[in-house]
């Protein structure tokens, strides 16, 4: 649907924009900055601050005939109104003449700024926003210079109001633009902020417990046009002009949000460059100008005191620090020794924390040594997302009326908040969601198509959808109810359709069957190979998709099976022992173990050789996001201690083992990837660095229009397309789900929470108040059968381990199920049946 175009003149420049465009946006498009405070291109306009005043002239028309009135020269007569009008609330009109920089408009804006400053404390020297403050910048540009009001009569308000643990409010500085309030309501639908009182006493309050309870709260500090909202993490940390900026990619989830790391040399860190704050970098196809609070605040792990800084080798059953040469020699000798032994071979385990370059070389080295690589992940289907993945040019921000998204077996709000946000926004543009899960999730609030299934029957649901659209007789046993049929019809008729699948409540085989069913569903309905159509896996790590693409595959029967056969193991950025303590027994025997890690993990503690690797802030590389967008991250700080990038360690080890491998840089490895990996053809660091103009413009001189999210000058990344073509005939494949026998007791299901107690989150002290404690979530009915009250201590055994933890009764938990959040202190890898006992 294309809107008709409207032509108008702004300060003498001819502009043609779609109907309905606001004057302020139209002016921005031709490079005229109208000052704004309350207006933000991502929010509805309210016209509260009045600083965007302009003179608007409309073509005069004869009232009776509607004919244009012409002057004696035959020119259209333009009528200017007596008053200035707000350009942020007025859509353009045909033939209008806008005067932005006329004497009257300039004087009007001058007075508005003078008025806004009457209650502003002007404490710019100690304000965190000072230096990147729209109010400061626009006062310099459009303000009067002096004030007719008395400084001593300024109203004095609270300057230190915590709106929760993460965001602080300074009531004096607030100019009451309501950007934060509207952002929370309109954009992220966490309406936890509001105004109270009127006039000068008007102030921002939070209505939630804990205060400002939202996963997106940090973004309000970016769009706040003054220093009223500041983050607890950066508060008084540095002045903006002192910060060095480097582009990066968020390492926490598969969305791949673009970041800018702000760094500075610190005396407190003995002169080292440290990360002062993490800011969003604009990429309208990925994260727009937002990031979640985990991405913003959980960066401290990279500069943690606990980081490994030196290679270590095992001497007399203890790990001692040595130099690189010695460690590499020990590793090579140990590997050669172990491989000479008759039993088994080499097993290499790596995961989605490593970059594409690391994984590609890792895969090559292990293959050269006749070993076997194992991808550490419990979610299957990375091969299917490569085959049936979303087409090149996919943009969740384009989904609208007629498009359908199926989200199955995952909780996007907890697992990938920005995807949640983008899908929620898609529904506002008319897209339909089908949300299938065993328990209610937040995304369900935005759709009528909710498919609820019992855990263990996720695959049945997907096959039910497939049955409804394919009419394959073999699928008849999976025929679903009316709701499911309706959802299937909706999916079939969709113009564009995307499926997000996760692994909640599923073991590896289950997720394999689910991914297969979802891929077939897309294929049967013709939703493959095109932009905005395809399959997306909700991985738990940033680069799991990249690991699949580089050729790594999980072992269907678990790492244990693979390691049992091995005489040597090489682990890169993974910690399987933490997830599965039984591996300790397997590894403790005479397996020669090399671990490449950031931290002294339980796996690293058992290693014969430990290589310290660099975190994402100290090195360069690429991640492939869930949407298969390959994006580059850059080094922001100097490397810690004697650490090396993972890919360099792999090369060093390869050379020590006599395997030829020689790449001078990560960029050279990427060229090799481009030659060898299907779909990655033509990629290089230069291509990944390309940018194009994006709307809305952020950055710029005043920072008022978009906020402090940074402009993307370092690369938008390149999306790797699926291998299946749109019109290719596809054989519908599906795997029947494994029918598991009903077992006694409750089904224990691990679920993902955004903030867990893993080291990458735990290292950020600022998030500590938001970290949950280990607990078990039970349905009140089950609890009453067991005689368990809310908060009571319960005990259960799983895989031979026993744990005591408090129970929480929640109606959202399905009956017969106990939910345990992952990484809070007790790891449960796959759903299992448990017997719960009340602890007296």
């Amino acid at each position, binding site marked *: 649907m294309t809107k008709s175009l409207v032509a108008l003149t702004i300060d003498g420049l001819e502009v043609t924009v779609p109907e309905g465009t606001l004057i302020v946006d139209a002016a921005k498009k031709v490079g005229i900055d109208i000052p704004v405070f309350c207006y933000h291109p991502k929010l509805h306009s309210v016209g509260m601050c009045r600083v965007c005043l302009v003179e608007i002239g409309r073509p005069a028309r004869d009232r009776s005939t509607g004919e244009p009135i012409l002057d004696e020269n035959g020119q259209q007569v333009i009528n200017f109104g007596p008053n200035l009008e707000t350009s942020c609330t007025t859509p353009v009109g045909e033939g209008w003449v806008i005067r932005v920089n006329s004497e009257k408009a300039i004087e009007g804006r001058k007075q508005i700024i003078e008025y806004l400053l009457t209650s502003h404390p002007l404490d710019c*020297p*100690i304000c965190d926003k*000072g230096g990147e403050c729209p109010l400061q910048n626009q006062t310099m540009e459009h303000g009067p210079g002096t004030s007719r009001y008395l400084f001593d009569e300024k109203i004095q308000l609270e*300057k*230190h109001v915590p709106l929760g643990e993460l965001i602080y409010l300074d009531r004096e500085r607030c100019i009451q633009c309501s950007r934060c309030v509207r952002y929370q309501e309109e954009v992220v639908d966490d309406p936890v902020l509001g105004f109270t009182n009127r006039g000068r006493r008007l102030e921002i309050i939070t209505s939630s417990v804990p205060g400002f309870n939202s996963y997106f709260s940090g973004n309000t500090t970016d769009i706040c046009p003054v220093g009223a909202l500041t983050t607890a993490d950066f508060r*008084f*940390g540095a*002045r903006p002009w002192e910060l060095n900026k480097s582009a990066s990619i968020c390492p926490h989830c598969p969305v791949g949000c673009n970041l800018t790391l702000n760094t500075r040399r610190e*005396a*407190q860190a003995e002169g080292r460059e440290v990360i002062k704050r993490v800011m969003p970098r604009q990429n309208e196809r990925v994260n727009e100008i937002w990031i979640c609070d985990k991405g913003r605040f959980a960066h401290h792990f990279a500069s943690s005191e606990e980081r490994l800084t030196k290679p270590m080798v095992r001497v007399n059953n203890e790990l001692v620090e040595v130099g690189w040469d010695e460690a590499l020699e020990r590793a090579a000798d140990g590997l050669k020794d172990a491989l000479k032994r008759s039993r088994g071979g080499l097993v290499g385990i790596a995961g989605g924390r490593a970059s594409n370059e690391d994984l590609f070389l890792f895969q090559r080295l292990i293959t050269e040594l006749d070993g076997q690589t194992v991808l550490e992940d419990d979610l299957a289907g990375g091969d299917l997302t490569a085959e049936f993945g979303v087409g090149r040019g996919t943009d969740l921000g384009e989904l609208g009326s007629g498009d359908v998204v199926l989200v199955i077996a995952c909780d996007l709000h907890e697992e990938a908040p920005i995807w949640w946000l983008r899908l929620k926004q898609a529904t506002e543009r008319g897209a339909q969601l089908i949300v299938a899960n065993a328990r209610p999730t937040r995304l369900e609030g935005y759709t009528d198509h909710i498919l609820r299934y019992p855990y263990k029957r996720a695959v049945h649901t997907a096959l039910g959808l497939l049955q409804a659209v394919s009419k394959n007789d073999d699928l008849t046993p999976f025929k679903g109810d009316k709701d499911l049929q309706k959802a299937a019809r909706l999916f079939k008729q969709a113009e564009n359709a995307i499926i997000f699948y996760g692994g909640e409540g599923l073991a590896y085989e289950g997720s394999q069957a689910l991914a297969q069913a979802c891929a077939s569903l897309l294929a049967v309905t013709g939703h493959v190979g095109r932009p905005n159509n395809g399959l997306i896996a909700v991985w738990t790590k940033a680069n799991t998709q990249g690991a699949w693409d580089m050729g790594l595959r999980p072992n269907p029967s678990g790492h244990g099976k693979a390691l049992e056969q091995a005489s040597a193991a090489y682990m890169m950025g993974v910690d399987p022992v933490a997830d599965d303590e039984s591996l300790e027994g397997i590894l403790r025997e005479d397996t020669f173990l090399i671990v490449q890690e950031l931290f002294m993990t339980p796996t690293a503690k058992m290693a014969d050789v430990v290589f310290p690797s660099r975190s994402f802030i100290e090195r360069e590389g690429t991640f492939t996001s869930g949407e298969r967008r390959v994006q580059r991250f850059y080094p922001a700080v100097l490397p810690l201690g004697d650490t090396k990038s993972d890919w360099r360690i792999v090369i060093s080890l390869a050379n020590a083992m006599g395997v030829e491998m020689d790449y001078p840089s990560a960029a050279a490895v990427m060229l090799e990837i481009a030659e060898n990996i299907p779909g990655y053809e033509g990629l290089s660091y230069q291509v990944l660095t390309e940018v194009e103009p994006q709307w809305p413009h952020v950055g710029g001189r005043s920072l008022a229009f978009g906020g402090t999210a940074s402009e993307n000058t370092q690369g938008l990344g390149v999306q790797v397309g699926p291998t299946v073509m749109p019109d290719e005939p596809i054989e519908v494949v599906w795997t029947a789900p494994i029918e598991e026998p009903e077992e006694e007791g409750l089904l224990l299901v691990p679920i993902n929470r955004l903030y867990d107690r893993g080291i990458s989150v735990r290292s950020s002290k600022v998030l500590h108040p938001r970290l949950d404690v280990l607990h078990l979530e039970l349905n009140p009915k089950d609890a009453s059968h067991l005689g368990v009250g809310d908060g009571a201590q319960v005990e259960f055994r799983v895989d031979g381990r026993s744990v005591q933890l408090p129970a929480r009764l929640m109606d959202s938990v399905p009956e017969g199920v106990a939910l345990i959040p992952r990484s809070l202190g007790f790891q449960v890898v796959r759903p299992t049946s448990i017997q719960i006992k009340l602890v007296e």
Partner: protein
Amino acid sequence: MRKNPLQLLWGLWTTFRSMFERPVTYQYPEIKRPVRERFRGRHELKRYENGLEKCIGCALCAAACPADAIFVESSENTDEERYSPGERYASTYEINLLRCIFCGYCEDACPTEAIVLEQNYEVSFTARRQAIYTKEILLVPVPENGKQTPMKVLPKSFDRAIPEMEDVK
């Protein structure tokens, strides 16, 4: 070229005469010549009469410094541990006097008149590290009747960064 020998004697007479004049040299370091009022010597960080530091850690001096000689890290005050009025104080304040060109722009930039180029010109070092003057060196002693920072104060008594307080006389 021949010269009049009497001119040589005339010159020597000047030398002889000056032997009876008062010397202009000072016996430094025993005797120090007082500097002019607007002399720009080594920096000092001033305090208010009650002992609170004037510096609020805004780092505008560092921004104004043409030689990049000043480095500031700031932190947040609490009423339990208060260093300066308002919310912000300098937790690290360093001036590299090897870099400093004594231009006085830091004084001009300071919103609280905390940094002043005083009269001390005796800055010499034998190692580079010694040239970095830390906050402990730069900060003036606590005035009489004042308290050492950090001090515990009554809540809300000093919550303005630019307060109405008496300067040390």
